[in-house]
């Protein structure tokens, strides 16, 4: 039990580093936000100073950092300069869109890649193995934005089966009442199947794009890990004792092979979060990636800072969970 606590505590230094880094990154961005605010020619240098003081920019870096931390404690992520809205609110409205897309694609990628990798490892050099190899190589070679564009061209322009790539839901449809923020969950909850179906059609292409991106490393890793375990000595012992193939593959090989894969899931998830920015741009998806990019272009640092913080926080949380999961399966980690 204490090891779980210890593992959780071990993220604290990283978290502290993340806080410092997000703070510093936005402070070295060019452009003075106060000047940006004061671009109105009617404003005098005194006005600019007043804005600067209001934003706390006249204080020392250390003081600014403490102010930043103090605000964070209250969930205050600052104000967006370009919209004048609190960043926390804007983030909350956009986070579900990104989260739904990422989780959808993540589950899709896991559902395809793990069976594929296992099947490829069980029959080396068979057609499944070749397919796995092709997918793994292509998946890492095609940029996500190209995948997205190709899918749009094929399914929207040529085949006409996909809806126009303009966000989560047709603008003429009503959103179901927000419970989780995930349309694919809120729709069925409200019994609104038409909206659910429309949302599903919208998420399919961007989800597929992201899934293809995540599929390749996962399938490759599963295959390699499974091959590695299958050639290990304890599998030979299991065969020597005449255990059934089913038992050997499922109980002996699969569970052991999944340990490194589960640990790497956190990494994959993080990559997907990064790829979000590109996919959201291609599909006009109203998520936090697109939001972060727009604020980056307009040098609006509070949303960017919040974005970085949320991303790093999710990364740490996902890694913690996958580590603990792997630790629960692996007695050597001493978690149970």
């Amino acid at each position, binding site marked *: 039990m204490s090891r779980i606590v210890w593992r959780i505590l071990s993220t604290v230094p990283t978290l502290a580093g993340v806080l410092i880094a997000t703070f510093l990154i936005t402070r070295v961005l060019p452009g003075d936000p106060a000047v940006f605010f004061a671009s109105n020619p009617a404003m005098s240098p005194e006005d600019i100073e007043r804005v600067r003081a209001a934003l706390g920019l006249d204080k020392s870096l250390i003081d600014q950092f403490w102010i930043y931390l103090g605000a964070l404690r209250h969930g205050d992520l600052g104000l967006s300069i370009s919209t004048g809205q609190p960043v926390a609110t804007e983030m909350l409205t956009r986070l579900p869109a990104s989260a739904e897309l990422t989780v959808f694609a993540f589950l899709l990628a896991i559902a395809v890649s793990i069976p594929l990798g296992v099947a490829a490892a069980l029959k080396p050099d068979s057609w499944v193995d070749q397919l796995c190899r092709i997918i793994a190589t292509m998946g890492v070679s095609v940029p996500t934005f190209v995948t997205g564009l190709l899918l749009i061209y094929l399914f929207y322009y040529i085949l006409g089966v996909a809806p126009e790539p303009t966000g989560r839901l047709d603008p003429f449809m009503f959103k179901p009442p927000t419970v989780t923020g995930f349309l694919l969950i809120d729709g069925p909850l409200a019994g609104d199947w038409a909206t659910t179906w429309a949302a599903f059609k919208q998420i399919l292409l961007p989800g597929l794009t992201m899934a293809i991106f995540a599929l390749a490393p996962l399938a490759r890793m599963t295959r390699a890990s499974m091959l590695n375990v299958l050639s290990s000595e304890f599998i030979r012992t299991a065969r020597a*004792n005449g255990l059934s193939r089913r038992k050997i593959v499922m109980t002996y090989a699969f569970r052991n092979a999944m340990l490194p894969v589960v640990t790497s899931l956190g990494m994959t998830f993080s990559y997907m979060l990064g790829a979000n920015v590109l996919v959201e741009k291609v599909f006009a998806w109203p998520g936090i990636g697109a939001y972060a990019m727009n604020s980056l272009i307009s040098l609006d640092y509070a949303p960017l800072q919040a974005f970085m913080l949320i991303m790093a926080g999710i990364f740490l949380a996902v890694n913690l969970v996958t580590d603990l999961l792997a630790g629960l399966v692996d007695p050597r980690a001493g978690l149970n």
Partner: protein
Amino acid sequence: MSANPLLSVRDLTLDFRSRHGTVHVLENVSFDIAPGEIVGIVGESGSGKSVTAFAIMGFLDKAARVLSGDIRVQGRDVMAMSTRERDLWRGKEASIIFQTPRTALNPIRTVGQQIGDVIARHTPASPTEVQEKVLQAMRQVRIPDPERRMGAYPFELSGGLCQRIGIAAALACHPHLLIADEPTTGLDVTTQAEIMELIRDTARAKDLATLLITHDLALASEYCDRIVVMHAGHVVETAPVAELFARPRHPYTAGLLGSVPSLVDSIQDLRAIPGSLPDLRRADLPPCRFADRCPRHHADCDIPGLRLEGIAPNHLVACRVPL
């Protein structure tokens, strides 16, 4: 060779196909083991002793090609078995244990579960019966406090205990043949003695035909009834232990005995065998693969058709000019 062997290997010849040509791994390997007998295959690395064991258990990989030979256990042709038949045969009729006992066990399954898997596979039993049989199997290999140990994972046990678990799993379904492939390599001397005594006592008590594969002549001499000496894929000599050590007839056996530290009194008495193993990829391997290293090399040695032949009761040797 014994009248009613439990295991009989006859003229086993096999090679490996590799990128660098065909490796002639085994040629005309023959030997028997009677029930209750412990036979040691002794040889240096590359002599083909492990491959022989793997061939018996049906563990050869795809690169291996059996050219001829016949392996029978209790009169049953092992090589003619289907995959399914062999799966049901392994662990029930014949078992093998390996070196590096810790890595031979599944790291994330308790040792009790692993023994239980074998029992459940080969004998119809309820979970509680399996549990009881697991404890029985653990007691049989003298594991202290089996009730507590059955819940342990391999990493929590010492190497010696892991090997006992391996033996317990191998013997859980009371097979008639046990192959031990270097079972004590990597274990400490004191642990080695305990494991070997366990194997010997079990073989005696259960009338188990046991094949011990080892590079350690002294170990084989202490625990085996009969020894099969292999060199470069040939069986060069086989004889009861006392006779083999008292009067080795093959020059290679004699050379091997002269190089074992425990058999000599001073370092000056130590005799090394000159040269090294022939390259088994050669197409023109001589009839006697020891010929190039042999101090007694004779023109007759190059005549093909060298066979293992009886030279005294129970003593066979493959040499034209035996000592």
